[in-house]
């Protein structure tokens, strides 16, 4: 309820107890009551509650501890998964790089073969032209063919070069990307290692906290249970004295006792009693000492009546 102090024990006690007059109690046959004042009750309960609250402060509850542990575990799992993915990507990238290098070598070989072929053709044509006897028209045609072949060879060479350049540029990009990934992976590896170490420390700390927390909680719980139990007993006793208790224990009345003790019982106790044990040591010294001490106090009788604390 808003505005109401949840630890208002005074109010709680006022609400939970009943008042009764001494005359009422006397009329119910209650001659003596043990009195536990409200302030003491309040103090006992406040102490118990404060112990619980102060004991709980600074340590984690079960659910908080479990939450931290679960979150930490989740983060570690994520980092481990990420590391696995990165590792696979790294391996795939390394394979890509090798494939590209092989392809480049093939292209270069093809280019060389094509170039060699065109050069051979040109050489053959030039040789044929140089032998003479050829008609000029045919020679012109041959020269055109040689020029076309040279152009084709040049084109093929340029294409090869361009293709190589593309591969090289692509490889450079991939390499740069891979280097970035490797740096990132290394960083992640460090993070994972650091996280694992932190997780270990955290787990250890949590265990320590848990055991300390459990021990404190256990102690508090025992103290609290004992206090509450004592208070309940005392409140029950106060209630019983004021309004009467349901838990009435039967005790024989004076009249019943008198009748019971009058009964004649058949027994052989008188005839089978054994001889008494005899203590040789006289009590005289002790008795006179006791009498002297009691006389010094002005109390002749060691009544021994219970001295109430």
């Amino acid at each position, binding site marked *: 309820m808003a505005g109401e102090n949840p630890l208002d024990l005074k109010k709680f006690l006022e609400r939970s107890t009943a008042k009764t007059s001494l005359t009422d109690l006397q009329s119910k046959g209650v001659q003596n009551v043990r009195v536990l004042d409200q302030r003491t009750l309040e103090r006992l309960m406040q102490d118990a509650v404060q112990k619980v609250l102060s004991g709980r402060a600074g340590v984690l509850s079960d659910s908080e501890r479990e939450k931290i542990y679960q979150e930490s575990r989740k983060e570690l799992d994520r980092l481990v998964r990420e590391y696995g993915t990165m590792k696979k990507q790294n391996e795939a990238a390394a394979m890509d790089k090798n494939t590209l290098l092989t392809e480049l070598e093939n292209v270069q070989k093809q280019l060389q073969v094509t170039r060699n072929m065109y050069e051979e053709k040109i050489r053959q044509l030039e040789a044929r032209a140089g032998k003479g006897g050829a008609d000029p028209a045919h020679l012109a045609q041959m020269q055109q063919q040689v020029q076309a072949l040279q152009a084709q060879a040049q084109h093929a060479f340029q294409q090869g070069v361009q293709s190589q350049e593309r591969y090289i540029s692509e490889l450079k990009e991939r390499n740069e990307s891979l280097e970035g990934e490797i740096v990132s992976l290394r960083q992640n590896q460090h993070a994972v290692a650091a996280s694992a170490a932190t997780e270990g420390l955290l787990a250890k700390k949590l265990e320590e906290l848990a055991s300390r927390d459990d021990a404190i909680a256990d102690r508090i719980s025992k103290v609290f249970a004992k206090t509450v139990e004592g208070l309940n007993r005392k409140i029950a006793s106060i209630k019983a004295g004021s309004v009467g208790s349901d838990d009435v*224990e039967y005790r*024989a009345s004076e009249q019943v006792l*008198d009748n019971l003790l009058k009964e004649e019982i058949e027994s*052989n106790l008188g005839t*089978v*009693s054994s001889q008494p044990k*005899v203590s040789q040591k006289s009590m005289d010294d002790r008795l006179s000492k006791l009498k002297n001490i009691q006389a*010094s106090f002005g109390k002749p009788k060691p009544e*021994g009546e219970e001295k109430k604390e």
Partner: protein
Amino acid sequence: MGRLGKGLDVGTVNLVAAEEGDDGQIALRNQRNAFIEIPVEDESTKSRLTQLKVPYVVFGKKMYVIGDTAFDLANVLNKNLRRPMKDGLLSPREVDAIPIMKLIIESILGQPREQGELCYYCVPAEPIDSELNVAYHRDVFNSVLVKIGYKPNSIVEGQALVLAELAEDDFTGIGISCGGGMHNISVSYKSLPCLTFSTSRAGDWVDSNVARVLGVKPPKAQLIKEKKVKNIQKPSTREEEAVGIYYRELIKYTFANIAEKFRNAENMPEFPDPIAVVMGGGTSLIPGFIDLVREEVKKIEFPIPIREIRHAEDPFYAVCKGCLMGAMTAQA
């Protein structure tokens, strides 16, 4: 005739009576405070029991064997004993047992030597760990003793032990009566009880725990405790070990409570010198008990210096002798 006044130790397990005889010696009689029902048979059964010196009573339509024989029978027949008292006090559930107890008391105390002879009987101090009330217990025993012809007066059990055993210390020190149902503690200064209280863990607590761990009935556990333990400090069998463990716990519990009471009690006298602690009662009779107490007390921080812990000169009868001393001092 010896000096007037009699003492009666009303214990959960034993009833003990003391009086001074003609020769100045102290006569002590005891009977186990227990009985067991047996089938009522013919007159010959009663004769046989009498010949065997087995005490019995016939009450209503039932026949009971009383005392030590009842204890032995319970063990032989593996039955539980009927005990009129529980936790040091008369059990309100055992109302029927009151006439039987009266008979037992009469048999050990005898008739008063003159009308209104004083009889001091012990009562437990207020327990600190239970809600039991001493008033009913005291009222019943007052009635019983009045019925027999005595003028009864109660004395706190722990203080009776102090009177019997601490004369050399000017009746200053701590008396601990280790009974079956309770441990009764009295802190005395020059015969005045400054602090008295009782705890409800005692011999019966040991018996019930030993019975539980060994899987036997409490009378059997009691028999083991009373007859089979050679040295409680050095157990050599499983049974001895079980008894030893619970005895150790019992001692710890009692002394921790005494220490706590000392710390919290108001108006406690300042003892100028270290004091003596004297222990008695049936539960203290087990061999090695006092050494075990000394060992355990060393482990706790006791709030006042203790000069010595010793066994009563006559541990079983000490409380009864204290009651007798009370009666004889008052009678004179």
